[in-house]
Each structure stands twice: as structure tokens, then as C-alpha cells.
């Protein structure tokens, strides 16, 4: 089973994301900021990261920068999931190594579409 690390300082968002991702057959690990997320990644690199931008301690953009420099850090598919819905943020995220980008609010259909886009979930033939 693939693992998705959900990184968001909102416990409600983490709960909603967990419900969606477990419904898509992912094992879910939660982190409340970028530092917490890096600890999890050092322990075991997940296949996917659902990543908020604005968090205390370390934000999503800086977490991504650290992740991509770690051994094996190029492997996880990183999907931003944030209220930052401006094109400048999107472009910065993609330049920083993100694979996809979700603008909040989100639903199961959007998560599924984005995870299919990055190859984490197969598109039905």
C-alpha cells in the first residue's frame, strides 16, 4: 500500500485529507509543519506528500526545498494543497520541485484527478 504524508497545520484539513486518501487506498501519516514532515521523511520516505504552504515553524515551500535535497527525496510525488491560489505561487511551487498543485477548497474528485495526473493512481483503461 502506498503512503501519503499529509502536511498541514490544520487538524481539520488533515482529518478531511485522511478520509479522502484512505478512501483512495493510501496509508496516511500526518505532520503539522515542515520540520515534523522532514522527521517523517527521514524515517521512511513516503510515495506521496500532500503539502500545505503556510505553516508555522517551516512552511511548505521550504520543506520541499529540503526534501528534494535529501537522499531519495526526488522520489515522492509532492502535491501542494493550499489556499495560495495565485499563479505566482503555483509557478514558484513547480520551479521548487512540486509535481502538482491543488487550490483549496478541495474535494475527493480533485485529489483523485491530481493523484492520477502524477501517476500515483492509475486511470481506468
Amino acid at each position, binding site marked *: 500500500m502506498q503512503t501519503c504524508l499529509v502536511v498541514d497545520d490544520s487538524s481539520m484539513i488533515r482529518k478531511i485529507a485522511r478520509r479522502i486518501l484512505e478512501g483512495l487506498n493510501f496509508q496516511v501519516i500526518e505532520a503539522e509543519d515542515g520540520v515534523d514532515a522532514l522527521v517523517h521523511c527521514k524515517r521512511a520516505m513516503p510515495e506521496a506528500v500532500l503539502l500545505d504552504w503556510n505553516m508555522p515553524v517551516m512552511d511548505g515551500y521550504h520543506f520541499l526545498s529540503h526534501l528534494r535535497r535529501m537522499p531519495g527525496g526526488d522520489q515522492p510525488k509532492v502535491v501542494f494543497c493550499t489556499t495560495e491560489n495565485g499563479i505566482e505561487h503555483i509557478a514558484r511551487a513547480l520551479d521548487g520541485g512540486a509535481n502538482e498543485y491543488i487550490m483549496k477548497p478541495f474535494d475527493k474528485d480533485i485529489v483523485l484527478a491530481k493523484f492520477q495526473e502524477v501517476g500515483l493512481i492509475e*486511470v*481506468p483503461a
Partner: protein
Amino acid sequence: MTPPDYEYLRKLLKDHSGLDLSVDKQYLIESRLLPLARKAGVAGITELVQKMKGGSSSLITQVVEAMTTNETFFFRDKVPFDHFRDSIMAEMLQARAGRKSLRIWCAAGSTGQEPYSLAMCLKEMSGAMSGWRIEIIATDLSQEVLEKSKAGIYSQFEVQRGLPIQLLVKYFKQTGEFWQINADLRAMVQHRQLNLLHDFSQLGVFDVIFCRNVLIYFDQDTKINIFNRLAKQMEPDGFLVLGAAETVVGLTDVFKPFPDRRGLYRPSGARPTPAKAPAAGGALPKVAAVAGH
């Protein structure tokens, strides 16, 4: 809603659009038409039907559009667009290399996500398509969805379902909470109002026809009739793309499946299998095309 109301609406929808509702779809009528009833200032479906019987043609049009408008999204089902790039365009680049032109018809274009997805595919191939003249014709029964398609403005939800983020950044401009597809892609798509039950020979002959997730709503004879007429609008080496749950097999021999590519068909050259009865609407009146983007 009384049984006579339901029967009246079933017959009206069949006659006007070919939509073939089975006997137990009252819930669908209620969910689509109760909001329309409220907007028309009447209490419910029975009162809406009375108003329609009173001769309100604009209300009839609104009812037909409310029942036939279906949700779509960018790169819906993904696989047909992989077929478009890898099979259809790979062949057409060679087959049409002499005349360097291509005509594509989206026969249920709805709010534009399908024709604009094709436009984006073609833009991504821009090097190979240099000097080519591409026409994408998007038709739909509903003038309302055509207007939305022409505007090319989509909500945050709509641009996140099926559209890769790289293409959003490349081909759309953000205006507040909405995203508009760029003008050069809007210019690639022409829009026409069209009822598939009616004569569409005036559209001309196409290299590629997308007719996805619309024929499922028609009865068998109507499907056969439309397939037979689609075959006449297609180049002998053209392609027909249907929805995942659709097939021509068992209905008509005018198309044959493309091997190993589900949903993809080509003209077979066979004589059309006649339908048992005329399509809904009887003789096919010409429909005046609505020109422009």
C-alpha cells in the same frame, strides 16, 4: 409530479432532444426542474407542465436544456486524449501532410472543456503543426452552455479536475477567482448550436469526430440513425471517438473498432444499417447554424 406530468415531459424531451428517459427517472426530473420551476415562479413540476402546455416556447427550451446539460471536465477520461495524441495525430500528421489541414468536430461540446482540451493537445504539438490549418467545431443543443464555452471562463473547481497544473499555468489567465483560457486557444474553436436529431450535413466532412457521452441517452434506433449520419460526415480514413461506456458494436457496421484502442473507431465503408423507425422528430429539418466563436 403526477404520472401524466411525467409522461408529458418524457415525450417532450424525446421529441425535442432524443433524450430517452426510462419509466423510473422521476428523481432526475425533480432534481433538474424544481429549481427551474422556482425560477419560473411556480410551485412545482405540475404547475411547470401547465405553463409549458400554455405555449411558453422559451420555457420548453429551458426545460430541454436543464435536462440535457451534463457535467464535463478537462481531459475527461484521459485515455481518449492519449489516443488523440498517440494514434490519431500520429497518423494524421502523415496522412494530411500534403494539405496540412484538419477538421475536428466535438459533437456535444457542452461548456467547452473537451474542445479546449483538444486545442491544448494541438498547441503542445505546435512544432509539428507549424503551417497547419486546424478547425475545431464545437456544437451543442444548449445555447447557454455554448455561450459559456465561447467565453472560456472556468471556476477554480473546474480547472482542477483533469487539467494538469502545468497546462493551467501555460494556457489560462487568472482573473480573480476565475480562470480564462487564452485568446489564441479560444480562437481555435468555432461554436454552433446543433441538435443531433436534426440534419447536420451542412457542417461538412471531418477528419476526427468526438461524440462522447451523449448517445447513451438515446434509444437504439436514434443511435443507429446518428451513427449512420456521422459516417457520412467523416473522411474514409477519419476517426470517431466515443465515451467509455459506448460502442457501435451490435448497432451498426458503418464503423469498426480501432484495434487495442478502446473508444476509437474508423469508418468501415459498409452500407448503413437502417434504423427500424425514423429518429425522434420525424423528417429532419435543417437547423440554421449559429456562426462565430
